[in-house]
C-alpha cells in the first residue's frame, strides 16, 4: 500500500473529491467510492468493454485506467446519459429493439454507442459493428444491438432535421 492521493473527478456533471491509492482502478473508484455501479467489470484485461465510460471525450475501458491517471478528468457513465424523466434515445432504442438480455454489457455498450454516433451520426451497419467491436455481449448475438443503434441514429437525425 502506498500513500493515498487526493483525486478529483467530475462524473456526470458532478464534482467529486476523494482519497485513493494511485493504483486503484477507475472502474472501482466509480463503483465503490462513488456508488456509480452502471459500468461493470467483465474481463479485467480491456477486452470486453463492460466497464466503458466516456473520459475527456473518449470512450475508454475504465478497468484499464488508474484513478491517478484519471485525476482531474471529466467522466460520463450510463447514469449520466439519461434517467427516468428523460431517457437517452439510445436507451429507448435498446428497449424497443430488444438490444439487451442480461443487461451486464448494456451500460458499457450504450455509453460506447453514444460516442460512436457522436462521431459518426450516419453509420452503416458495418461501421456500427466495427465501432462496437470493443464491447462484448454474450447474450444477444449483437443483431438487435446493431438494430438498436441504427434505429437510434435514424431517430436522432430525424430529430435534428426537424429542429432545423
Amino acid at each position: 500500500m502506498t500513500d493515498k492521493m487526493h483525486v478529483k473527478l467530475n462524473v456526470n456533471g458532478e464534482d467529486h473529491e476523494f482519497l485513493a491509492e494511485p493504483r486503484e482502478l477507475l472502474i472501482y473508484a466509480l463503483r465503490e467510492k462513488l456508488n456509480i455501479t452502471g459500468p461493470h467489470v467483465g474481463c479485467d484485461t480491456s477486452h470486453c468493454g463492460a466497464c466503458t465510460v466516456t473520459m475527456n471525450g473518449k470512450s475508454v475501458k475504465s478497468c484499464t485506467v488508474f484513478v491517478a491517471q484519471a485525476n482531474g478528468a471529466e467522466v460520463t457513465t450510463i447514469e449520466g446519459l439519461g434517467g427516468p424523466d428523460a431517457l437517452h434515445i439510445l436507451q429507448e432504442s435498446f428497449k424497443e429493439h430488444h438490444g439487451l438480455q442480461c443487461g451486464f454489457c448494456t451500460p458499457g455498450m450504450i455509453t460506447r454507442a453514444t460516442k460512436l454516433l457522436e462521431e459518426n451520426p450516419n453509420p452503416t451497419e458495418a461501421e456500427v459493428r466495427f465501432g462496437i467491436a470493443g464491447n462484448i455481449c454474450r447474450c444477444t448475438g449483437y443483431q438487435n444491438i446493431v438494430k438498436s443503434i441504427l434505429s437510434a441514429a435514424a431517430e436522432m437525425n430525424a430529430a435534428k432535421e426537424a429542429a432545423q
Partner: protein
Amino acid sequence: MIPAAFEYYRPTDMEGVIALLQEHGDDARVIAGGHSLIPMMKLRMAEVPHLIDLQAIEGLSGITVADGTISIGAMTTQHDIINSASLAAAAPIMKEAALQIADPQVRYMGTVGGNVANGDPGNDMPGLMQCLNAKFHLTGPDGDRAVDARDFYEAAYMTEREGEEVLTAVSFAAPVGGYAYEKQKRKIGDYATAAAAVQISKADGKVAAASIAMTNLSDTPVWSQTAGAALVGADCGEAAVKAAVTAMLSDIDPTEDNRGPVAFKRHAAGIVLGRAIARAWSRA
C-alpha cells in the same frame, strides 16, 4: 485483478520525467495510454514501483506533415492517427494499420509511442515503422538522439532505448507509391497471427522500390530487406511475389502459440505478404 502498489508521478516537463527515471532506475516506467502496461501490472507480470505518467507534458502529441517529413508525437493515439486528414493524405498506410489495432476504446488510449517503445512483438506499429524507415526520437539525460526503427528492436521487450530515456516522437519521410497493411487475426482485439506492412513505388510499370516488414512472426518486428529487394525491377507478378515471400520466410522465426503451429504461421505469413504486395502494387 489488482496491481501491486506504486508511487505515481505526473511531471509537467521532460526534465522532470528524466530526473525521476534517473532517481528510480529500473523501478520506474513511463506510462502513456497504458493499454499494454496496465494489464501486465494487473496480472502482476510487470511490477512498477514508480509510475511516471506522461499526460501532462506539453508537445508530446500531434501530427505534423511538412516538407515531405511526417512527425508524430509519442502521445498521439491510434484514434488521432485514424482521424488525421493530413496523415491520411501523406501516409495512408498509417490509418489502414491503426484501424487494425485492438478496438475503438483501446485506440482512444493506445499511443504511437507506447506501441513502438514497449517492444511487444505483437504490436503493429513497430513493423510499420520499420517498413517506413522511421526514426525514433529519444530524450535522455545526455540529450536527444534518434535511432532508426530498423535498429531499435533487440528482442521481445528489449530495445535500444536506455532505461533513462523517453521516446518522444517518431518521424519518417512521406512514403511514395502504393501501400498495404495486411493483418490476419482471430478476432477484433487480437494480436496478429501474421501481418505485413508493404510500401511499393512504381516507375515505368516496374517496382522502383519496395519496403516490407512483418509483425508477430519473431521476437522482434522483421524488416526484410531481401524481400523488398526481390520485388525491385519486377512487375509484381507471380514469380516476383514468390521470390519476395521466400526471402521473407528466411528472415522470420515464428513460435507456436494459441494462434497455431509454426508451419501454419509461416504459411499465413506468406499469404498475408502476397496479398499485401498485390494490394500495394494495385495502389502504386
